[in-house]
């Protein structure tokens, strides 16, 4: 049994690639966790779609200000140098390419960079939020995700079967097993867990993993 990374560990790994001074949007839910793992000495500035730049952690329970929330409707705080702006200005930042990184969750990522993360199909209530804007805005669009579904099916696929969030938008995927870049519409394996062979990883991946040069070891602390 391979010991895959926990969500916190995936988030930690993604956080290591955020440069000092980067402007970053973290999707609601699991991606929000990335903020906790900023390397010491680096200062990322977090953007939330509902009009705040440079927000910080959640306030203590009972001290929430419900006019000061993030896109996930969770209470946040402000850091020095924060600003407020309206929704059109907020998405001008997104769509205009002013964010350095957006990190999103995924149902499926295709080797073409297509992302499906907003709809599991025609049943249920569709809800898209800001995901379709984020995938076409940030300079780098990364996904954090378990490598496979709960049923063990690949989430990294040749072509998405679910409704798309965006076409050819994802450039890096951090999974519970590997770090994979998307280049020229192919998955390029950058890092994998040492305890796992390339063949084992390939068997859990729905499209071919290219190897270019050495494959790094995916090393993440206990969290």
């Amino acid at each position, binding site marked *: 049994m391979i010991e895959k990374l926990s969500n916190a560990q995936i988030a930690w790994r993604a956080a290591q690639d955020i440069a000092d001074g980067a402007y970053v949007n973290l999707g609601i839910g699991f991606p929000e966790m990335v903020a906790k793992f900023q390397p010491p000495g680096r200062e990322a500035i977090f953007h939330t779609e*509902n009009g705040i730049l440079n927000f910080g952690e959640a306030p203590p329970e009972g001290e929430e200000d*419900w*006019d*000061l929330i993030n896109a996930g409707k969770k209470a946040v705080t402000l850091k020095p140098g924060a600003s407020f702006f309206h*929704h059109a200005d907020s998405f001008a930042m997104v769509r205009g390419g002013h964010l350095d990184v957006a990190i999103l969750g995924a149902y499926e990522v295709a080797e073409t960079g297509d992302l499906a993360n907003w709809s599991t199909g025609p049943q249920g*209530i569709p809800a898209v939020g800001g995901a*379709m*804007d984020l995938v076409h805005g940030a300079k780098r669009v990364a996904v954090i995700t378990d490598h496979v579904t709960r049923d063990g099916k690949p989430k990294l696929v040749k072509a998405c079967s679910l409704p*798309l969030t965006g076409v050819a938008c994802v450039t890096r995927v951090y999974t519970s097993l590997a770090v994979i870049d998307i280049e020229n519409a192919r998955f390029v394996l950058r890092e994998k867990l040492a305890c796992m062979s390339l063949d084992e990883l390939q068997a859990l991946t729905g499209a071919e993993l290219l190897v270019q040069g050495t494959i790094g070891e995916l090393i993440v602390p206990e969290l």
Partner: protein
Amino acid sequence: MDKTVADPASAVADIADGMSIMIGGFGGSGAPIELIHALIDRFHATGSPKNLTIINNNAGNGRIGIAAMIDAGMVATMVCSFPRSADPRAFTEKYLAGEIALELVPQGTLAERIRAGGAGIPAFYTPTSYGTDLAKGKPTAEFDGRMYVQERWLKADVAIIKAELADRMGNLTYRKAGRNFSPLMAAAANVTIVQARQIVEPGNIDPEQVITPGLYVTRVVEVADAQQEEALMRAGVAYA
């Protein structure tokens, strides 16, 4: 010039059946609860307004605000980006029963369409949604080698929004992230109705700090101790 009115009921008195209404707020942040509840009160008393199209980022939460409008049966169509919430049952039940229509719009496109409505821009191109189900049927075009979707402006008969300070000429400031869609909606509606925490005399808001200039505002009502949707929801309040 004095745009102030006495109470929420008179502020929303001319909202009629079949109108489109932009409602400010993102979740509970900036939601004009007292104006919404004044509409619900009138509906219960008179049967109007009903058959409304509501434009908001979300589709209500719990049993207050927009969710209570939906529960009451006032809403025919929701235009929003994210009809989910901590407690989405009002919308979910009506939607699954086929009793409410949904126009789902990506959040940035929703904001930009409303901004375009206020700015006299009938259409614009965005990369957002290109190649997805939400772009189906929309014109597309290539600019500089990249594909874009043409989106149309969005206007409404009425906007109801929440401000922090207002002066009697309608100049507004907002509170923190409660700003969100409200300045855009104020410009995109024929009639803009504002509840403000405090109404001050003209000259008492620094001209540098006005976010919504008064020309976008039709009337203003002071609601000093406004309720907060999130707090009401967490307290389990149902407005009916």
